[in-house]
């Protein structure tokens, strides 16, 4: 008898909680959603995240605003560690991801996350790495750079925003493709600090974000020698890709930015977000602002992002094996 009652109670509770869960998912979101950005205010990721979440509050989007929280430190590791271990998987805490950064960091080790810790939702942007030199530099093409590097092994200093980020991957690929040894100088403080080092002549060259380099060139401070992507970029139609200059460098270093949720977030919520967010990124106000800011957009759905993550995992494991 007792067992019966217990069984019924269990069943009822189970059903109730199911119903409650379904209702909760239906009503999602009932309050503002947090989006954690693992870089500081003012950085490119923070800046773009603030723009692409602009339209979240509109009725046909999430009908709730998305608030940005910055947890900067150690090239994003602090924020993503927090996200993987402490963020509640209830759909109210999301994070921005940067590929290849977090995948490369998880391959290198020492962090508490990997691509399996997160559920991708949608991608909003893709910022390729470019190779820049100061405006008075003697280098005018990638072959000038490679020639110098061959004659002076380990002497060609070039900056980039940290280790195991897009810039570093591009640097590794260039060195590998040309078979030369150069001195990669990781800076702290994002692309801006790396760019400053190039403009001020602290280093001979640098790898940087296309968007930042584009602006610096507009300002007349740098020359851009090559783009580390599969094809030329709309912002820089005159700059050849690395491939065109005979260097076997693909798009593995392109900095993809998008939104993800922690593993364990209810499927219904993931589906709702995955359906809504790409629409939100296409909002005309968002597109206008992103274009104005020189931030290249690249909208991808959840399935496309999953495929891209898997591919990066493979390429980067191969590239970083020797390190």
């Amino acid at each position: 008898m007792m067992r019966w009652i217990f069984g019924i109670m269990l069943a009822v509770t189970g059903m109730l909680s199911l119903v409650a869960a379904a209702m909760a998912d239906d009503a999602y979101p009932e309050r503002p959603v947090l989006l954690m950005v693992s870089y500081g205010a003012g950085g490119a990721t923070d800046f773009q995240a603030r723009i692409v979440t602009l339209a979240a509050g509109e009725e046909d989007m999430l009908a709730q605003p998305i608030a940005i929280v910055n947890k900067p430190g150690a090239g994003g590791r602090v924020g993503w560690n927090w996200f993987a271990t402490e963020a509640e998987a209830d759909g109210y805490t999301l994070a921005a991801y940067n590929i290849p950064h977090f995948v490369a960091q998880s391959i290198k080790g020492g962090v508490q996350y990997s691509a399996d810790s997160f559920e991708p939702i949608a991608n909003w942007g893709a910022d390729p790495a470019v190779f820049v030199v100061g405006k008075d530099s003697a280098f005018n093409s990638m072959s000038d750079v490679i020639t110098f590097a061959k004659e002076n092994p380990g002497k060609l200093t070039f900056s980039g925003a940290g280790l195991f980020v897009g810039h570093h991957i591009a640097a590794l690929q260039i060195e590998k493709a040309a078979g030369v040894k150069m001195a990669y100088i990781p800076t702290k403080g994002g692309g801006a600090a790396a760019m400053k080092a190039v403009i001020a002549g602290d280093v001979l060259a640098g790898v940087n974000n296309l968007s930042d380099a584009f602006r610096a060139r507009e300002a007349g401070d740098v020359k851009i020698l090559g783009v580390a992507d599969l094809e030329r970029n709309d912002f820089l139609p005159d700059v050849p890709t690395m491939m065109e200059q005979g260097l076997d460098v693909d798009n593995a270093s392109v900095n993809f930015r998008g939104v993800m949720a922690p593993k364990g977030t209810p499927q219904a919520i993931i589906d709702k977000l995955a359906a809504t967010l790409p629409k939100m990124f296409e909002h005309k106000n968002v597109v206008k602002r992103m274009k104005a800011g020189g931030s290249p957009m690249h909208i991808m759905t959840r399935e496309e992002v999953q495929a891209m993550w898997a591919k990066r995992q493979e390429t980067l494991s191969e590239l970083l094996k020797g390190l």
Partner: protein
Amino acid sequence: MTCIQRLLPSAIIAAVGVWVAYISYTQEPADAFLFPRLIAAGFVMLAVWDLACNLLGASVPAPGMDATAALNLAPGMLVLLIYIFWGAKALGFYTATTIAVLTIQLLYDPAPRHLFRAWGRRCLITATFVAVMYGLFAKLLGVYTPKEFFH
């Protein structure tokens, strides 16, 4: 007494310094500990110097602690620790703040505790302050505390 009092903080700091130096010079990869090594050297040197000064009694006089002050601050310190390390998360920021602000006033208000007017004033100050904090942080700045006001 004062001599021991003064030595204690110096000794603790020196111990921390030695620990920092030990970690910096033994942990791998060495590249990540370049700067810690640099500062650990200065840290240990200064800490030993400071300790020596105290031992020889050559250091600049400092107020130190006395029994009255320790007794006075004990209840307040207790409220502070409970409020921060337990209350804020368990009870929610606003509830815990209300309780803490009221308790601290109660503990340190020179007015007699049975005086009705003093109670009125304390409650009013607490209510106004918490309302302002709620308006500023929860409503205006959109800071999401672990628990909102009522749940």
